């Protein structure tokens, strides 16, 4: 115990308004140089637990009992001055979204060195030099000058590394990392994970690593605590948890993390070969160019998509893969008629579609439906589920009265929800249930083409997997043509027969999923494939090696974008 940097004992945190405790009697400890991962789904209390290590509680919560001791100081009863002197120096915090955690109006140098300044540890000049050394070690470009930028002027991955630098500035004993890579693209995630792993190793810092992603955790953690509903249900070394999980929930987590790797796509999962391509495709996208701003000679001021072509047949799932800023959401909007293309054509059953939704017929609109990424914003919070679905039924099919009720129940059954959910409001549903309603809303139109735009990226692993299962069932049962857009290669690989890889608005590679993903030809696809996290040891090092090898092949420096426009685009995209 004497060696413990952090020790939490029998901690119970509950909402001020009463109700089930958020953290329910947890005891853990972190030794020097050890990385303890807290893994669990959203709502498992992992962030709340991690923040108590800093003596911080989010508004609306209170401590019922327990103790949190950091390097000999009882954090829950410490005076504000004591907490202040420990925070940033003895214990540092790395937040999930760097885009939100940096002050938009202050330069990065000022924010990174602020820790030294408020603790009065060294003169500004020395603090700045220390920061620049850290930038260099974290592989930030031009360490001497890059800190003069404002947060919006660097990319999402770079900003996350600045936050790691900010955390390491005063060489803390303990680093608390709250989902530090969850908001990042896979290729960026690899970069940030490497930086974090190195930062922790360099200083022999202990770390508390909060995540929902077992594959990510397995690369960095020495011990893992699995959290569920505010309790630690399983605890062990990283290897024990990964190789021989005891609890059913842990096994499910491990299975989900393995399912989500590409390697298993070919082996475990058999994807039906594409239906005959002789027939006229259900949907043809032909040489589409789209972007923003004034269109001159068919070229918009800012081009986000250029020369995009793809075909979709009945009963087929086409995956569109791309990272933030690749133009994949624009493609969805172009097909749905929400964003007119500057050039190119879209055909449905061989018939040319108008480029805006206003000029399409009702039946054309009914046949193409879009499922949005965020169910929270796509569903009207004030309408009941029954009303949300009923409106679509009335609009497209004129269904009303008893028939409508029956159809709503049928739709709910289709997305595996009980019929009584018709009376609920979206706020009374969980994230996964909301996404199911979101799907049902699109299905209510009885479409032939379904465009799914990142529908699983806001969900926990296990929930996401069940949604993907559902989409797969629906595509078979209803013989829908589905365009499945995602940044997550693993998801697409289990679902799609054909896949198209987008980068900077262009198609870099396309073809049958198994061929593209198992033997990618384009260096960027190779990079994407190697960046999908895997739970086996040594994956991170391999991914870094692949990345270094491919660096020269990728003509522009996408790995560390430095131009302002590139940077601000990625920063924006991170939050979307």
């Amino acid at each position, binding site marked *: 115990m004497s060696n413990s940097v952090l020790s939490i004992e029998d901690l119970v945190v509950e909402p001020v308004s009463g109700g089930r405790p958020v953290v329910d009697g947890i005891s853990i400890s972190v030794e020097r140089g050890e990385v303890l991962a807290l893994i669990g789904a959203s709502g498992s209390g992992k962030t709340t637990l991690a923040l108590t290590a800093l003596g*911080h509680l989010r508004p609306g919560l209170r401590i019922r009992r327990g103790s949190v001791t950091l390097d000999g100081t009882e954090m829950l009863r410490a005076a504000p001055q004591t907490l202040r002197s420990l925070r940033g120096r003895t214990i*540092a915090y790395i*937040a999930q979204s760097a885009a*939100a955690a940096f002050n938009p*109006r202050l330069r990065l140098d000022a924010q990174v060195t*602020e820790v030294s300044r408020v603790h009065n540890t060294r003169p500004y000049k020395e603090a700045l030099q220390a920061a620049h050394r850290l930038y260099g070690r974290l592989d930030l470009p031009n360490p001497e000058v890059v800190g*003069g930028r*404002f947060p919006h002027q660097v990319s999402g991955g770079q900003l996350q590394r600045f936050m790691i630098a900010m955390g390491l500035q005063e060489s803390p004993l303990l680093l608390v990392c709250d989902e530090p890579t969850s908001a990042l693209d896979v290729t960026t995630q690899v970069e940030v994970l490497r930086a974090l792993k190195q930062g922790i190793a360099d200083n022999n810092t202990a770390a508390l690593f909060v995540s929902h992603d077992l594959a990510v955790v397995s690369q960095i953690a020495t011990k893992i605590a699995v959290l569920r509903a505010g309790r630690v249900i399983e605890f062990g070394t990283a290897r024990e948890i990964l190789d021989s999980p005891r609890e059913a929930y842990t096994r499910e987590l491990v299975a989900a993390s393995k399912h989500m790797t590409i390697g298993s796509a070919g082996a475990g999962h058999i994807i039906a070969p594409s239906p005959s391509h002789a027939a006229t495709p259900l949907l043809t996208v032909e040489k589409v160019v789209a972007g923003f701003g004034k269109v001159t000679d068919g070229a918009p001021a800012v081009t986000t998509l250029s020369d995009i072509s793809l075909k979709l047949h009945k009963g087929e799932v086409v995956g569109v893969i791309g990272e933030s800023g690749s133009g994949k959401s624009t493609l969805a909007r172009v097909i749905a008629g929400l964003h007119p293309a500057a050039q190119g054509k879209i055909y449905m059953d061989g018939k040319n579609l108008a480029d805006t939704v206003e000029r399409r017929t009702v039946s054309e609109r009914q046949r193409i439906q879009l499922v949005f990424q965020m169910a929270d914003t796509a569903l009207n919070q004030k309408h009941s589920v029954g009303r949300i679905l009923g409106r679509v039924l009335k609009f497209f099919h004129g269904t009303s009265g008893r028939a409508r009720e029956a159809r709503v129940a049928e739709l709910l059954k289709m997305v595996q929800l009980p019929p009584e959910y018709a009376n609920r409001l979206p706020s009374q549903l969980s994230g996964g249930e909301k996404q199911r309603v979101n799907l049902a809303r699109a299905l209510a139109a009885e479409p032939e083409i379904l465009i799914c735009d990142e529908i699983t990226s806001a969900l926990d692993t296990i929930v996401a997997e069940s949604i993907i299962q559902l989409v797969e069932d629906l595509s078979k049962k209803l013989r829908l043509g589905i365009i499945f857009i995602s940044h997550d290669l693993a998801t697409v690989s289990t679902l799609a027969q054909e896949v198209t890889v987008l980068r900077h608005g262009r198609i870099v590679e396309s073809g049958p999923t198994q061929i593209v993903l198992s033997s990618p030809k384009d260096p960027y696809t190779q990079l994407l494939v190697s960046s999908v996290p895997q739970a086996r040891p040594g994956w991170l090092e391999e991914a870094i090696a692949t990345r270094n090898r491919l660096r020269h092949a990728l003509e522009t420096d996408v790995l560390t974008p430095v131009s302002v426009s590139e940077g601000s685009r990625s920063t924006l995209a991170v939050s979307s």
Partner: protein
Amino acid sequence: MLSFILKRVLQTAVLLLAVSVLVFIGCQILPGDVAQVALGQFATEDNVRALRLELGLDRPAYVQYLSWLAGILQGDWGQSITTKTSVATMLSERLWNTGLLALVTTIIAVPLALILGLLMAVGAGRTWDRGASIVVLGLSATPEFLIGTLAVLLFAVQLRWLPAVAYLSPGAGISQTARALFLPVLTLVIVVTAQIARMTRAIIANLLTQPFVEMAFLKGVPTRRVVGVHALINAVGPLANVVALNIAYLVSGVVVVETIFAYPGLAGLMINAVQARDLPVVQACALIFCATYVLMILLADILAHVYDPRSTAQTAEVKV
């Protein structure tokens, strides 16, 4: 950034031109004939016609407008119909009085309101904040005439410390001016402080819920620095707008306060001129009031722009 400022200044110039047209039209459609009012009920037709000719009222409206505009641009605001003196002379004295009142009020009220608002935001939800919020909300809902009248009752009638009427004579010394200004300034400070403090509290309290503020606290940054640096720097834009609107109000909207204390300011001048159908004076006052609003908002916009690194990305990029 320079191009932004240039663009906004040009826009403002166009807007001011449009305002001048509106002011002119507004005065044209005021009921009653200027010459008739000026000469009284019993003037003969011939006299009225002669005066109309003298004032140039027989010319087409657009000619009148253009000559008025050309005059203003050369600093000639025309001649008052009732006093026969130049409008510019009448304005200059009143403008100075109003300016003094607005300046003194601003110097006292703005820092007071910002500090009050910051303190309320820091203690948001606590007893101190709730108490202060009720008082401030109450004060900002209380009409100025009530505050002014109560102030007169207390300081002038009961305590007899200060004069009830704020008459400024041109040669008055500092102490006399201060005594004259005290009650109107007090009234306006209360009104303006309440407004700005409420807005400041709302803006800062909202910023304090942002993740970057939590991050700053978790870095060990002391509260006063979190509020004074991290939150305040993000509040410059909205705060500048709130302050600008209040200053514009001090210049143009203080008719009630000027009337209560018989303070010789612009608003009072305008009221008298409207009653006398003294159109040149009415037009001049209206134009000054509008211009104050437009210019204050221009200033606030430029300030907000200068303080937002996202809008000045180009300059920052050069530095890197």
